[in-house]
């Protein structure tokens, strides 16, 4: 490298949505400035205005089809929170909470495994190198790591033959034009072959385990929800001949139990050992990609209702400057805590773009000021993204698996402490390595283990309740909007797989008058704010990234993928007062 360069990666692939990264490098190829831009917007909040709040979950859920359940849950929780604020006795039945926990947990484990194998792995795993592996040595390697039964030499030979035939046909399809052979790939051929085999296994596994969502929600992607509980009534004890027409009978419950077992086995036998094995070859990635050092979690997975935060498996709070000795509380309603900025986002605030707005008072007007497409570069000194910049007390925050694992660790969760300890010891890396690209990817695996294990407890409790005669799944009190107070507002919080998620709803006369979603990938992928503070992606890329070849930006992909971007989530925000185009007719 001899000159400073501007590197543009667009599209960032193997993510959800439309993301563009622009980075400036110095003469050594080191990234000095990075800019993250969301390049697609739909305006779902405008579309939500004036509608029945009970319908909102279905619209909000279509924000994203990958983390397909999270916006549905956050949305029904926002309406329930509004009802609870107005009528403190309002709650949902315990069975509904258990079923939601099972669905959320299933989303985590499904999503995290798919992210690791299908979205992230190809940053670390060289598919073509797998052709040089010795299947017998691969089998020995696999069996030294795990008791996973699909590990014979014949099995790996078959996978290798399949890939070889594919490659020899000369049509590489989704594997074409990649960075195979790049010096940044460090795995030996046998580890590559094992990972390719598990890539294919995970594809088959994920199809089966989403059956849990189909039982409770009718389908996946986009399962169904309902304000006040869950739509799937429990029909174990019925005798009217209609059990076959329902899902939550004894057959359905057994399917759920089976999925929980499959999930735990795959995490224990494949995902966790693979993460540790692959990480062992990339320990240098424990020394870059941190960025902010500030972490936020809204908390989730309650055992005594969503308004009892002490009962959460994942705690709520903020960690600042890596300081795990102190977890700061979050005041959701304080005007100066959670705010969104638009200084570098294609929106306009009525009182000027420099201020931040609390989501209950959130306003956004689409205001595209970027270059007319087709364009080569965005003007990063001005506005450059459809994402806003959320901040907590004016500070940029990272949300997601690393934030949650640190929060559990800092709050004394024994399993989290043990898993983190074992991981650091196995990899022989210092505790600082947690704050990195590698730490972020490892944290995703560790929380999958914690959450998959917790599923059995919720299932057992559900069965115990049914056995004791409690089959309530839905609170029909206040179902009818005519029974609601004239004005209500509430916030639906959840920890989505990608991080803290909040839906803020204002209801007037039983209609939505304002709806704002502040989502994980906005926290992480948002642009700079009024003070010029970068978002989490930008800061992470500016942390010790030297590119071997700017034309093959694998280093950028590794760190960006470690966040598991979900950009359709992050970019959807438009305001009640936003620009409304007349319907366009094409002749």
């Amino acid at each position, binding site marked *: 490298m001899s000159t400073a360069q501007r590197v543009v990666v667009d599209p960032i692939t193997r993510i959800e949505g439309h993301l563009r990264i622009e980075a400036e490098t110095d003469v050594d190829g080191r990234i000095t400035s990075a800019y993250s831009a969301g390049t697609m917007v*739909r305006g779902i909040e405008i579309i939500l205005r004036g509608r029945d709040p009970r319908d909102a979950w279905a619209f909000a859920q279509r924000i994203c089809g990958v983390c397909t359940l999270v916006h549905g849950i956050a949305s029904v929780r926002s309406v329930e929170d509004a009802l609870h604020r107005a009528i403190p006795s309002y709650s949902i039945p315990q069975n509904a909470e258990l079923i939601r926990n099972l669905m959320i947990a299933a989303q985590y484990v499904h999503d995290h495994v798919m992210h690791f194998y299908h979205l992230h792995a190809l940053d670390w795993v060289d598919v*073509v190198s797998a052709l040089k592996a010795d299947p017998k040595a691969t089998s020995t390697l696999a069996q030294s790591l795990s008791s996973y039964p699909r590990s014979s030499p014949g099995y790996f030979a078959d996978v290798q033959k399949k890939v070889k035939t594919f490659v*020899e046909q000369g049509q590489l*399809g989704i594997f074409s034009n990649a960075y195979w052979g790049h010096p940044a790939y460090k795995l030996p051929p046998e580890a590559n072959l094992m990972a390719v085999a598990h890539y294919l296994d995970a594809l088959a596994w994920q199809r089966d385990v989403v059956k849990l969502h189909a039982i409770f929600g009718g389908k996946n992607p986009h399962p*169904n929800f309902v304000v006040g509980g869950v739509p799937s*009534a429990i029909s174990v004890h019925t005798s009217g001949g209609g059990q076959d027409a329902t899902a939550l009978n004894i057959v359905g419950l057994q399917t759920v139990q089976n999925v929980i077992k499959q999930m735990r086995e795959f995490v224990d036998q494949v995902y966790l050992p693979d993460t540790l094995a692959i990480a062992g070859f990339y320990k240098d990635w424990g020394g870059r990609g941190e960025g902010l050092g500030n972490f936020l979690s809204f908390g989730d997975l309650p055992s005594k209702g969503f308004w009892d935060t002490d009962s959460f498996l994942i705690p709520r709070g903020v960690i600042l400057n890596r300081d795990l000795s102190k977890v700061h509380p979050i005041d959701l309603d304080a005007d100066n805590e959670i705010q969104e900025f638009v200084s570098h986002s294609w929106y306009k605030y009525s009182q000027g773009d420099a201020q931040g707005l609390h989501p209950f008072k959130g306003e956004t007007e*689409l205001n595209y000021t970027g270059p007319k497409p*087709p364009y080569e570069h965005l003007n990063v000194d001005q506005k450059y993204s459809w994402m806003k910049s959320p901040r907590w007390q004016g500070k940029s925050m990272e949300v997601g698996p690393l934030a949650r694992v640190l929060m559990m660790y800092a709050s004394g969760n024994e399993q989290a402490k043990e898993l983190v300890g074992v991981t650091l010891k196995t990899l022989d890396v210092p505790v600082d390595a947690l704050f990195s690209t590698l730490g972020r990817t490892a944290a995703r695996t560790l929380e999958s283990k914690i959450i998959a294990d917790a599923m059995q407890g919720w299932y057992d409790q559900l069965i115990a309740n049914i056995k004791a005669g409690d089959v309530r799944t839905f609170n*029909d009190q206040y179902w009818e909007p005519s029974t609601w107070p004239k004005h209500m507002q509430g916030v639906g919080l959840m920890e989505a797989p990608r991080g803290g998620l909040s839906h803020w709803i204002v209801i007037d006369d039983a209609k939505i008058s304002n709806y704002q979603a502040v989502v994980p990938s906005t926290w992480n992928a948002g642009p700079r704010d009024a003070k010029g503070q970068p978002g989490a992606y930008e800061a992470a890329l500016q942390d010790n990234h030297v590119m071997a070849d700017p034309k093959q930006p694998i280093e950028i992909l590794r760190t960006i993928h470690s966040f598991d971007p979900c950009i359709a989530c992050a970019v959807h925000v438009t305001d009640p007062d936003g620009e409304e185009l007349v319907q366009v007719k*094409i002749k």
Partner: protein
Amino acid sequence: MQGPLIDTLVRQGVSRRTFLKYCATLASMMALPPTAGRAMAEAMAASRRPSVIWLPFQECTGCTESITRSHSPTIEGMIFDMISLDYQETLMAAAGFQAEEALHNAMKDNFGKYLLIIDGSIPLGVDGAYSCIAGRSNLDLLKDAAKGAAAIVAMGSCASYGGIPKANPNPTGAVSVSDIIKDKPIVNIPGCPPIPVVMTGVLAHYLTFGSLPELDDKGRPKAFYGETIHDRCYRRPFYDQGKFAKTFDDEGARNGWCLFELGCKGPVTYNACATTKWNGGTSWPVESGHGCLGCSEPDFWDAGSFYKALSTPANPLKLAATATVVGAAAGVAVSFANRAKKDAAKKAHQPVTLADLEK
């Protein structure tokens, strides 16, 4: 060495020697042994999997996620044995410049022959800046990619009909694929998302028979969208008996009674959920206790609340809706009314063949 590809290349002035050299270079680029070049050349000459290019516009990736849930054929089965998935942003290894190049190469090498899949709607506001890939608007990309496509699959309700971005007041000026492209065969596979086996089933049909399946007047394959949810619903006998769940957790809900009064849109929704079910035949929305949202119908987002019982979109249904209020005694009338509605609907579903589309 002979085969369709090599013949084509020879016709285009590429010598056998050049072709072999290309294969050898490719093999060495991929760090394969020298013998692989020859094997590759033979395999390539013998057969090529049809190229499929998938472009994502204003979408949520739900359609991509859905196709990975297909049990037969599976996504990996398709990728390895049936198609060459040359551009698919969620799954492809390459990014940035290399991804753009992959798209460019696939379009050039397979001009006139590739199957183009679109998910998401196309925004026309602010010169297309509401949705860009690599600095290019969706409209620009669609028009360019459509030129060389043999046929286009509009995957999901957004690409088929505009979907959620087009919901009132359509803030970005979103339109469907068929609003833009008028000179290519287009099949709509609506649903939010579509049923996985329907997605792969339509692709398999095209790959096996070389043509799109028979379509209805909304551009949907009749094989999967020929009947309403309600016609094939397990809970239909309860409807006919006038037995309805009144809330999500009453005796009726637990007994699998009809969800009509909870707002089910099954009677006016054409899709295969009730027969194919979802996720390997595990369940489907109505079976799991929630009414059908009507997600495979155009503009279903603006068709009234999901929890409001259907009122009167058509005369026969008006009779049905009235009858439900009367209750069990009206079962026969309801049943009769629905037969009439079904006949009317069938008449409205005149087949559209590929020949019609190409007129």
